[in-house]
């Protein structure tokens, strides 16, 4: 095992390269520009495709084009750029092609600032564009995890022919940690049967999201929903920390999730029986497991860098079994473990 000290943005970019990424299209935006910069050197050096697009609108449509031909392709961005991709993301979902998008969330709404945030949770998990769809969303909490999730993202995207997003929260792009990169993977030259590659010896292929006739489009929608249902069945991922004997459950993801590990340690030291569930997939969400755990808890505390977006999903999961409380910071403020610990104590007091 050879670990390197890696910055999150560089780590996921290099992981993508080693996972056989064939093309990257993107537009600079803080706090993920180092990824684009890393791709700009590495992809060209490896004789693969790197192109800085004229905008995020163009970038996502370049990705759409490349993905239509069955190659491994991705882009990365942050809030405002993601918003500009909404139309393209919806087309990609409607066309059922595999695409991976990384969103390093920053403070919003609007131009906001460039500090870390988790306020695009709803945008990513509930819609990401018009129509009945949403991506599969992975949420890494450390550098090793974002590296591993890049590989997973491609795998899932291609397995289900679906849109996969990696939801970083700004800080994860900026921080450095020791982590191991995967070995360099050969690029597969094979293209899937559905891809547009020139109609040689077969009927022409078509990549489209247009389905004239309501019944036809309804069928497509039903297929999409079934696909999402299958994903929901198979791909829920999360990590638990000391939940066995816990009486109070922390739920947090990404950077806040790892901060809660510190909270948990401190709380345990003070004799509080705190456990932590850290969702690794934001959609599909570990609803059943949270519901199950809720039964043993005196309360649940959700911590987020948002106004309380995942909170709603946790409330839905807990389904009234135990009180759910929230601690959130916004606008780029990263909550300190001490603040969350305070909130834990408050919940503890309130419920006991």
């Amino acid at each position: 095992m050879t670990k390197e000290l890696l910055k999150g943005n560089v780590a996921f970019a290099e992981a993508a390269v080693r996972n056989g990424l064939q093309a990257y299209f993107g537009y600079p935006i803080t706090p993920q520009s180092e990824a684009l910069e890393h791709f700009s050197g590495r992809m060209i050096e490896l004789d693969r495709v790197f192109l800085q697009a004229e905008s995020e609108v163009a970038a996502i449509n370049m990705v759409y084009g490349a993905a239509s031909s069955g190659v491994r392709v991705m882009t990365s961005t942050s809030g405002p750029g993601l918003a500009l991709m909404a139309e393209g993301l919806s087309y990609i979902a409607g066309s059922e092609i595999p695409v991976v998008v990384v969103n390093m969330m920053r403070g919003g709404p609007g131009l906001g600032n460039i500090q870390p945030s988790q306020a695009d949770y709803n945008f990513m998990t509930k819609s990401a564009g018009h129509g009945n769809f949403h991506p599969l969303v992975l949420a890494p909490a450390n550098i090793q995890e974002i590296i591993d999730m890049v590989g997973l993202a491609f795998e899932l995207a291609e397995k289900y022919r679906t849109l996969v997003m990696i939801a970083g929260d700004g800080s994860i792009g900026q921080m450095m940690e020791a982590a191991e990169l995967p070995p360099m993977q050969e690029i597969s030259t094979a293209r899937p049967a559905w891809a547009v590659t020139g109609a040689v010896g077969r009927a022409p292929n078509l990549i489209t999201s247009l389905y004239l006739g309501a019944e036809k489009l309804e069928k497509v929608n039903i297929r999409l929903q079934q696909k999402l249902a299958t994903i929901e069945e198979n791909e829920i991922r999360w990590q638990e920390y000391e939940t066995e004997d816990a009486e109070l459950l922390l739920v947090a993801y990404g950077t806040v999730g790892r901060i809660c590990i510190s909270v948990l340690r401190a709380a345990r030291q003070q004799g509080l029986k705190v456990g932590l569930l850290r969702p690794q997939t934001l959609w599909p969400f570990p609803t059943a497991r949270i519901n199950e755990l809720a039964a043993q808890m005196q309360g649940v505390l959700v911590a987020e860098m948002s106004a309380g977006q995942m909170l709603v999903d946790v409330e839905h999961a807990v389904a009234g079994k135990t009180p759910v409380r929230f601690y959130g910071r916004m606008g780029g403020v990263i909550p300190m473990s001490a603040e969350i610990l305070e909130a834990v104590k408050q919940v503890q007091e309130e419920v006991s």
Partner: protein
Amino acid sequence: MKHEETIFSGFGGQGALFAGQLLAYTGMAENLYVTWIPSYGPEMRGGTAHCTVIVSAEEIGAPIVQRPSAAVVLNLPSMEKYEPLIKSGGYLVVNESLIDIKSEREDIHVLYLPASDIATELGNPKMANMVLLGAFVTATGLVSLETIAAQLTAHLSGRQQQWLEPNKQALQRGAELVSA
């Protein structure tokens, strides 16, 4: 158990971020867990820059802290900001050349070093960061000076390699000042 949460802070260009990175590289080389996280703002020059480095024998949760166990401050605003936050029993390492105030805290270890002056003497005022880092690790025993020097060799960028030896000397001078 080894566990140090250190903030490096100074004007942009004073090398606070690099000093922190070097510590992180060194911690990693010594098989410790490390995290390094910068403050980052609008990409414009002239502001202050700081980073938080955690070096620990145990897996690291929160990569940032409200109250660091140590702070290495390169300029006055950094001193004013972080001096009050250091945990009791912690370390404050001060670039005396540019900071003309003193800490009044009695519950922490404070090291004053004329870092910029020493660095200028060694040929480049930008090496003040190394003087302070050398002093810091020597005082705390967090990592060894040799490992830092090795990491410096490995991670000084191409253009900076000409400054390798002076940088090592700066580390050394800092170390000597506290062990003296």
